Every structure is written in C-alpha cells, then in structure tokens.
C-alpha cells in the first residue's frame, strides 16, 4: 500500500483529536497502529477509511485522495472490520456478505456464491453461515466481519481493534484469521493492542500518543524503542503480555 498523510487535523467538539499528523509509507503490506486508548489511532483509521471528515490536511491512499463527502467509490474498494463486528443484525452471516456483493457491487448471486462459500470455509464459518449474528460467538462474528470485508476483493482492509471486546481464546481465534490475510498477501492496516501480534505480522509500526505520531518504523522499534513514550507504553503493555498466547501466532 501507499499512504501519504499530510498535516492532518481532526477535532471533536472543537477539541483536537489529531494534530498536524503526517505519515508517508510506500510498499508496505501490513501497517499496525499502536498506542494507548484515546491516542487517536482509531480516529486516524476512520479518517483513512473516508468515514469522517477532517478539518485540515490531506490523505492519499494508493493514489486516491480521500475526502469524506466524495469517498463513496473509494470506500467500495476498502474493507473495514469494526471493533464490534457491526454485522447487520437482521441477516444471517451468509446474507450479510451477499447483501454487500449483490446490492453495492452489483454482482450476480450465482457467480459470487462459490467464492463466498470458499471464504467461509477458509475461515471456519461454513457451518454457521445460516445463523444470525447474535447466534454465534464474538470471535465467529468478528471472523465473519473479516470475510465480509474480504469478499469485496478490496485494495486494502482496515481493522479497528478487532479483538478489543474478546476474551483471550477468541482473540487468538480472530488474530489467527487476520494472520491468514497477511499470508494471502492482502494489504491491511490494523489498530491493535496486541503487541505480540503486531510484532509477528506488521511490516511497519506507528506508535501514537495524544493524536500525534511519536515513533514509527519496522518491527525493530518494538525491540529497541527510542522515545520514552514508547518505552513507557511497551513497559506497561508487556508487563501483562508475557503469557499471552498471541505471541505464539
């Protein structure tokens, strides 16, 4: 992916959430945004998705100039996995995927059905395809959300803390699914608290605090952080992360 962000500014109720943020990466497959809660990483992801308008600056993703009000076509090329899966609650898992493909991407049901079934199979969801979102576990819902994002054959997938509301076992389950994306050479940006996971899959890591990028670079920054902020953050996170099974992914 190619991502160019210049002097980005985003406010909520006149309070600056992201202040004068710039970032430029090229030829990166997996970008991980890390940082404490409230650091602005999820907001940045939503701005990259074209879901929200910003006050100043510019965002360019793979050559698309992202402006919220004009981003309808751009958004169709981007898959998004929300924190709380956001599956349509009145539709089965299968229909959640089919609805997007049929109505937005105008693809014929008979053509896409085999593709969707293959994806559901790959992500271990085939036996749950006919169930409603509330009838399956949080981990399965999140995997279904990944399949939905993947089914549109996106240029890029954005994942906003896909494991934040899951217990360790379901977290492992979902991160294993995300890892499949990496193995399939799909470009994605993931906002995550799972440092062990970021370390194992990300090509590039961006650490944020108070709406600013404090440190960025390859996985090495997690091994040898330069800024006191990242050192402090890792110190706190890794204290409790030692036994986490995501490190073994």
């Amino acid at each position, binding site marked *: 992916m190619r991502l160019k962000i210049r002097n980005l500014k985003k406010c909520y109720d006149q309070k600056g959430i992201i202040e004068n943020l710039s970032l430029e990466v090229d030829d990166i497959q997996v970008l991980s945004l890390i940082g404490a809660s409230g650091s602005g990483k999820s907001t940045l992801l939503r701005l990259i*998705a074209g*879901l929200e308008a910003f006050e100043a600056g510019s965002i360019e993703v793979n050559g698309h100039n992202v402006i919220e009000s004009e981003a*309808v*076509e751009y*958004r*169709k090329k*981007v898959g*998004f996995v*929300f924190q*709380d899966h*956001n*599956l*349509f*609650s*009145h539709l089965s898992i299968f229909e959640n995927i089919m*609805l*997007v493909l049929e*109505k*937005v991407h105008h693809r014929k049901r008979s053509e896409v059905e085999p593709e969707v079934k293959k994806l559901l199979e790959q992500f271990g969801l085939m036996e749950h395809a006919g169930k*409603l979102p*509330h009838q399956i576990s949080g981990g399965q819902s999140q995997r279904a959300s990944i399949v939905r994002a993947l089914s*549109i054959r996106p240029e890029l997938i954005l994942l906003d803390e896909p494991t934040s509301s899951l217990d360790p076992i379901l977290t492992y389950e979902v991160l294993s699914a995300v890892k499949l994306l990496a193995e399939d050479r799909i470009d994605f940006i993931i906002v995550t608290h799972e440092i062990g996971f970021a370390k194992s899959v990300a090509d590039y890591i961006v650490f944020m605090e108070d709406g600013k990028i404090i440190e960025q670079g390859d996985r090495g920054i997690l091994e040898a952080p330069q800024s006191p902020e990242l050192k402090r953050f890792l110190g706190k996170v890794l204290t409790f992360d030692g036994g986490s099974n995501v490190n073994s992914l």
Partner: protein
Amino acid sequence: MKKKLSFATAILIYIMFYIFIAMSALEKNIDFSAYQRYYKVILNGWFTTIAISLVALVMAIFVGLILYLMRESRFAVLYYFSEIHKTIIFGTPLVVIAIIAYYYIGNAFNVNSKFWVGAITLALYIGAYIADIYKGAVEAIHVNQWQTAKMFGFTRYQTYRYVVFPQVITGILPPLAGQFTMTIKSSALLAYMATDEFLNTIKTVQSISYRYPEGFIIVTTGYLILTVPLIMLVRMLEKKLNYKV
C-alpha cells in the same frame, strides 16, 4: 404444569368476580332474550367495530408514516405541522375529538358517513402514536448499522431499504399489534358520535329492554374476544422478534 394450574386458578377467580358483580347488579334472573332478539343488529355492530378498527389502523399506519417523515423533513414548516398535530392529539381526549370531528369537521367538509368520519378520526388519533413508534424504531437501530452501510458504499436509499427498513419492521410489529388493540378499544368512544359500532348497538338494546347488566356482560365479552388474541399476539411477537444487535 404448576404454571398452568396457577393460570387456571387466577382465571377462575376473575370469572367468579365477574359473575358476582353481574349477579349483584341483576334485579331479577339473568335474561338475554332482548339481546337474542336483536342479535343481528348487535353482531352487525360488532363487525362494524372490527371493520372501523381495521380501516382506521391501515390509515393510521400511513398517517403515522407521513407524520414521521414530516418530522424528519428538512422543511421546518412540515416539522412543526407534525409536532402541532401530535401535541393536540396527545393533549385532547379522544371523545372530545370524536364529537368535534363529527359535528363540526365532518360537517364542514360535507362528510356525512358516520363510518368514515369515525375511521378517519381514529386514524388521525392513532396515527400520532404510530408516528412515535416509527421514530422509536428508527432511533433504536444501532449507530454501527448506519456506519457499516456507509462504509460498504450503500446509498441512502439502499441503507433504508436493506438495512433500516427490515429492522424497523420487526421493531414496530409488536407495538403496532398493541395499537390495534388500542384502536378497537378507542372505537367504543365513537358511540358518542352515534356511529353504529358495537357499544352503541348494545346501548340501543339496553335502552329498549332495560336489561343493562346483561348488555355490559355482552359488551365486555365481545371486546375481550377481539383484544385478548391481539394481546397474546403482541407477547408472542415480542418474544419472537427480540433479537440482539
């Protein structure tokens, strides 16, 4: 089994209470002969109640939708038009509206059919409540459903058609069935505008035969026959459609 027994006991106590009240009101023996004589008129009134309630509900569903859309409109005049209508309806007893509608509004527009004035009055009244049901159902749709639709590139129409509307329908079915019960009960007030619905026909027979308690037994039972299945339907729908986001 225990649940059924408790239910049967409670029902029995109610029936006994009902009979006790009816018996103490009866001067002589219970006598339904006058009502048997006029059963066709009474049955006609009962069917008129069903018809007027059905027609009123169908119209109210549209009145409610129009009021809701006006409320959501970008044009402030439409918004206030809807709000004023609802405020008047919420603040005025139906019986007062029924009398004014029949004697003055119906007259002004040259509508003489008691059935249609009654049905339209009920529709305008119940419609105000239904508008709020729509509003509640749309607001109950989680913000993430809108967001997801936006993210995946749904147009505004597609979002309403494929995401919002199906969820609103399941959300409004139980309260709509409840409103139908309300409509049937409220239709009794149309007796004040001399519509030949169930209560009015019973009142007519009462005044001819002077057998008042028997009339009330029939009228209560007649309404319960209509409303109890609806109340049970509401409960069943609430249970069945209660899915989580």
